[in-house]
């Protein structure tokens, strides 16, 4: 009953799947993740299908009323069955263990995915993301990348722990105050993607996301030349507001600023509470931001930007 239903659900899902997930990858790392998922699922079938098929069969054949099976009330051991069970599952685990080792080393997020990756420094805060192209510019809630190019994100956070995730490019990694983590990936074809924080961090968690534009190399170069606001405006405003709806492009911070900020979150945040009373004025402004975001997303034209 459940098995055909699951397959029907899977078929339905695969046919209608064009969303923000790893199953519609836009870059090679996400594509590798998708392929590992499918392979791991398939490799589990030899040990699991005998149960999923055998169990209903046993339930029917050996039912007390009307079942046709033999009855051996004292049978409780078979060396052959033991060997098959322990051996079969051990072999599967050895095989999958080797795959885990190869996959994990191969798709290590700390490993460059190509020569000379573009470096982007990231600061996650409540509830907005700052991106720094060192020496070039800084952006908020928006990162622009050239297509088919390796990228290395250096990631830290101020305030709560967050999880930096652009599902269609690569998996996630935690962004933590006082810590630096890395995520390497290679971009794919032109695309408008979404990145977000997946670790719950308070009142405006649903708004804690950013745009990822994968553009042509010329567009990327001209993006780096685009007009910008002063860095100090960014820093003052970033510390102050909960959610961001101002300009997105700024001057780059002084050299080494990100490293210092990763060790001292107070450079990025004034440290307010992440959970507020319903009648707190800041909660009101978050509620308004949520409503205007919803209004925007309902007016946004639907469709996949693949």
């Amino acid at each position: 009953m459940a098995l055909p239903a699951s397959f029907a659900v899977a078929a339905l899902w695969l046919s209608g799947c064009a969303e923000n997930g790893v199953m519609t990858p836009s870059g090679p790392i996400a594509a590798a993740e998708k392929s590992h998922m499918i392979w791991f699922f398939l490799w589990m079938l030899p040990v699991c299908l005998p149960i999923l098929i055998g169990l209903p069969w046993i339930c029917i054949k050996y039912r007390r009323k009307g079942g046709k099976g033999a009855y051996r009330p004292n049978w409780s051991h078979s060396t052959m069955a033991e060997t098959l069970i322990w051996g079969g599952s051990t072999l599967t685990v050895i095989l999958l263990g080797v795959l885990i080792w190869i996959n994990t080393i191969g798709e290590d997020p700390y490993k460059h995915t190509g020569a000379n990756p573009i470096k982007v420094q990231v600061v996650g805060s409540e509830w907005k993301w700052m991106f720094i192209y060192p020496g070039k510019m800084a952006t908020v809630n928006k990162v622009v990348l050239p297509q088919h190019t390796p990228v290395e994100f250096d990631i830290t956070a101020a305030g709560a722990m967050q999880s930096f995730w652009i599902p269609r490019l690569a998996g996630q990694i935690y962004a933590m105050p006082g810590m630096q983590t890395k995520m390497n990936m290679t971009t794919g074809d032109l695309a408008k993607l979404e990145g977000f924080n997946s670790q719950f961090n308070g009142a405006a968690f649903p708004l804690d996301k950013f745009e990822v534009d994968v553009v042509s190399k010329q567009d990327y170069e001209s993006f780096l030349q685009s007009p910008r606001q002063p860095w100090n405006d960014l820093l003052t405003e970033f510390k102050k507001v909960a959610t961001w709806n101002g300009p997105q492009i700024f001057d780059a911070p002084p050299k080494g600023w990100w490293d210092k900020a990763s060790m001292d979150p107070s450079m990025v945040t004034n440290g307010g509470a992440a959970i507020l009373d319903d009648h707190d004025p800041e909660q009101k402004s978050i509620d308004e931001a949520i409503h205007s975001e919803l209004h925007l997303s309902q007016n946004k034209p639907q469709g996949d930007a693949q």
Partner: protein
Amino acid sequence: MSILGSLNWDDIFIVPWFKEPSTSTAIAAGAGGIVVLGALAVLVLLTVKGWWKPLYKEWITSLDHKKIGVIYIVLAAIMLIRGVLEAVVMRAQQVAPAPGFLSVEHHAELFSTHGTIMIFFVAMPLLIGLINVVMPLQIGARDMEFPFMNAISLWLSVGGAALVMASLVIGKFETGGWTAYPPYTGAQLSPNEGVDYWIWSLMLTGIGTTLSGINFAVTIYKQRAPGMTLMKMPIFAWTTLCTAILMIFAMMPLAVCSLMLALDRHAGFHFFTADAGGNMMNFANLFWLFGHPEVYILILPAFGVFSHVIPTFSGKKLYGYTSLVWATIAIAVLSFTVWVHHFFTMGQTAHLNAIFGIATITIGVPTGVKVYNWMLTMWRGKLRFSTAMLFSAGFMFTFVIGGITGVMLANPVISFAAHNSLFLVAHFHNMLIPGLLFGMFAGINYWFPLCFGFRLDEKWGVRSFWCWMIGFYLTFMPLYAIGLMGAPRRMAFFTDPAYMPWLIISMIGALTVLAGLTCQVIQMYVSVKNREDLMVPAGDPWDGRGLEWSLGCPVPEHDFTTIPHITSREPWVDAKASGLRVMEPTEFVDIELPKNTGMGFWVAMVATVGAFGMIFQMWWLAALCWVGMWVLVLVRSYNTDWEHHISAQELRADYERHKHVVETTPKVSLDDEFTSKNRGLIMDMEEAV
């Protein structure tokens, strides 16, 4: 600082609704109102019916392991109702037009209490309760090794649960999920009392669980009937032993990390803050050093239940006893070696991740072996699909699917792509609903007569099974799908219209689960109402295989009139095969049983009030209760008159009474197992011929 600490008017449940009327505050006020009215209704009922005295004399003060077990299960049932209702509200929130009817904060309180309640106040009391009832009966013991400590464990757990309930009425609960990672849960980002509720309710129940673990392990080591070597113990006793050892070692890191968090919050420490050298990664490490063994604390007892229900209702010996024992031990040992898989995404090296990934799938070997062993137990049996058996079969089928996704998530690269998503949420519900709840439901349906003397109604039991089973698939299969479509967990609302059909299916599933729970409430009501028809005084309603079925139902306070001498794994089966229907008595001797005492209850209640003082920073109250608690323990320790005596003659008379009941009970065939003809003396007539 005021005498009431940080407590103020805004903390009372209806005040925020008056100040700021909205659907979200109205729901919060309503939930608090339900708790208050529910408590009032119970008080009125107890008074009107005159039940205060029997409640106190026979239940609250009891040190009988069976009664303590029953109270644990009642606690779990109450909390399960709250947990399921919260789940339904969360599902409804996500199908409502965004941003839904709950504030982000209120939704966060819901998923945090849902997780905390389901793990600590549903799953744990269920399994500890079931172990309390059954394990001593299976190993031929008259009680736990430390009956008074057992009562303290129980009432500390009740106190912890009471604090979680109190958070609906006074103040707020924590919002960082059941894992409560800092720095989000630090004083700066979460200044209200929510995190303190989490810390202190877990502290109470955590101490209770550690004491339970010690009690179970020592009972198994010291109290087995003569001749019952470890390899002759029933599998449920084996899984209890492994669970108990896990409890003893795993609850410590939780206590340590939550105390460190409390020090961070109120004493200016910096264990987990980024200032002054703190590091939140240590919390994740400590938490999961507890959290992963905890998963196996939850699942192993259910594995024990299946190892008894399946052979009984297959009319067949358990396949692969030795395999199952070693698989249990392997799982218990390996459970301490995999905790890093809860945070593959924290930036450690690929080699470390790979090693923990491989350790994780290694647990799949003994677990897979177990499922095959149960399947081979059913093979060539004669299967009777009672409620307990249906839950067991439903478990096997569903658990395997969760196993597949679990092995997928054990690959760190896949974890990067599915962590913090609804795929993960679907996975752990896929393990715990069959692997824990179905096991406990099977166990309760199976062993219920031991406590109360009557069976549970089968018709409503079967209905509850189908609702739970179908409800589970409808709820969580869609979450797998949208998890892979990039839906993060703990999201108050989704704006992507593609998720909506899946969320609606999931909502229908949650309602189906609620229907299953309703069936169980009806099942209980109908069974109590028809208890005369369901009575099984002869004590063996399912043609059972364990010693617990040789004692008569309900089992007397002293459990065994004489302690049997064990020579095989299934002494009761052997006795029945030789034509006996009552175990041959060994030697009648005078015994001592612990007297009832309310001291365990009062110690724990004082501790609970002290914890409440800690939560609202009423330090004077906390200090007073701390001292008071130890004074009570001391008073109890100097009490030398704590046992009552049962003479050998009384035991002999009791044995004769039971023998008489069995001899005058009509034998029935398995065909009549689920009818009122079943008075607890049942056999396979074809076999007998």
